[in-house]
């Protein structure tokens, strides 16, 4: 094993990991927001909302993430839709935003299905009891149904967060300097084929393993009322 590149290149991995985490955080937040709306649309009685949500979820789940990323990064600017490049994201802000958008759009579809199943797993007596007290549909959703649904789906949602961290490696193809991209750069610069990738794999593992431990703790905390 040859890790002699580390003293010179360690910063590549640190910056890469930082960008991977940043990508994942934005994606998870936007993905969940999008997912909640799509799930509510999918269970609503409004046929149009229902159709839009179903079509969205099916199309996103039925096409490869790589294709979606290319369409968003190369395709959208071609028809005049450009991405902003916020300063805090550094030199590759535009790519970064495109990456976040693509990953969120993708993750939102999966999160929507998780949340929908979570909402439908809550006993319908809960909705009836809350409505019979005079609470509206919306406040029942907010105070009664969604908190219980979130608890039910926390394992599945946590799994989706882990998937997001791992899948974010794919946006290296559009030049975002996240962990995978930087590991690849080190590989190219040093002509060492294996070890930089092992380092990248180890960092990915540390990220996902830590997250899964934290989710385990959160799950136990939420079980108080069971």
């Amino acid at each position, binding site marked *: 094993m040859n890790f002699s590149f580390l003293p010179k290149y360690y910063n590549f991995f640190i910056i890469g990991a930082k960008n991977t985490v940043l990508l994942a955080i934005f994606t998870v937040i936007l993905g969940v927001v999008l997912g909640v709306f799509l799930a509510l649309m999918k269970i609503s009685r409004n046929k149009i909302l229902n159709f839009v949500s179903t079509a969205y979820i099916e199309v996103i789940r039925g096409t490869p993430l790589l294709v979606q990323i290319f369409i968003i990064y190369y395709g959208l600017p071609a028809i005049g839709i450009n991405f902003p490049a916020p300063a805090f994201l550094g030199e590759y802000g535009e790519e970064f935003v495109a990456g976040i958008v693509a990953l969120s759009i993708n993750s939102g579809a999966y999160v929507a299905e998780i949340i929908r199943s979570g909402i439908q797993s809550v006993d319908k*007596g*809960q909705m009836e009891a809350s*409505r*019979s*007290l*005079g609470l509206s549909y919306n406040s029942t959703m907010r105070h009664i149904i969604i*908190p219980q649904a979130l608890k039910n789906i926390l394992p599945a949602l946590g799994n989706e967060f882990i998937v997001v961290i791992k899948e974010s490696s794919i946006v290296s193809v559009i030049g975002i300097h996240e962990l995978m991209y930087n590991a690849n750069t080190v590989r190219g610069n040093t002509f060492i084929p294996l070890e930089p990738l092992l380092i990248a794999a180890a960092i990915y593992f540390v990220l996902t393993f830590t997250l899964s431990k934290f989710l385990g703790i959160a799950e136990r905390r939420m079980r108080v009322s069971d």
Partner: protein
Amino acid sequence: MIEVKKLIKDFGKLKVLKGIDVHIKKGEVVVVIGPSGSGKSTFLRCLNLLEEPTGGEVIFEGKKINDKKTDVDLLRQNIGMVFQQFNLFPHMTVLENITLAPVKLKKASKEEAQKIAVDLLNQVGLEDKAGAYPNQLSGGQKQRIAIVRALAMSPDVMLFDEPTSSLDPEMVGEVLEVMRELARDEMTMIVVTHEMGFAREVGTRLMFMDDGKIVEEGIPKEVFDNPRHRRTRDFLRKVL
């Protein structure tokens, strides 16, 4: 207080209610009995629009409620309901269960609502359970909390949908006792139940339903002792 005229409810091709006419006055305790599938629960659920009537009218405090213009949420604030399965909110403490609706619907400030909740908990003997979660309670305790939760909105009428049917036998009494107390305080109540003793003792009126219709109604004691219809007689013979 509640006037029901020619109430009809279909579920697809299945006709569940086939024309119910009834007038319920303030302070009455109407007990609804009948075989399963007779439409008792559906009738009750039409009164607060948990089921939307297919036809007929339900008039509550002078207003027709099965009307597009009705503010359903506002209406339900005045109609308490207790379910067979309790339906307490498992992610909230007892106190939160009780104060949620009054606070969110601005019937009371948080402090007022908590005071009302504690008073009501005292009345049902569960003041020490305010901080407990529903899963820490027995069935009888859950149902008493569910009654308190409905009462916290100070409704004008209380609907009970088989409130003791999923309780262990030794817990039925404590729930019926709370309901008896309510009746004594002249709460208007409509109770779907299989508890014939309760019906006879506490009910001011008994309604026997079968096959989507009210077959017979009257003062409970008279109906129990002298049922006029054959179907009432058959049913009472089976359950008594």
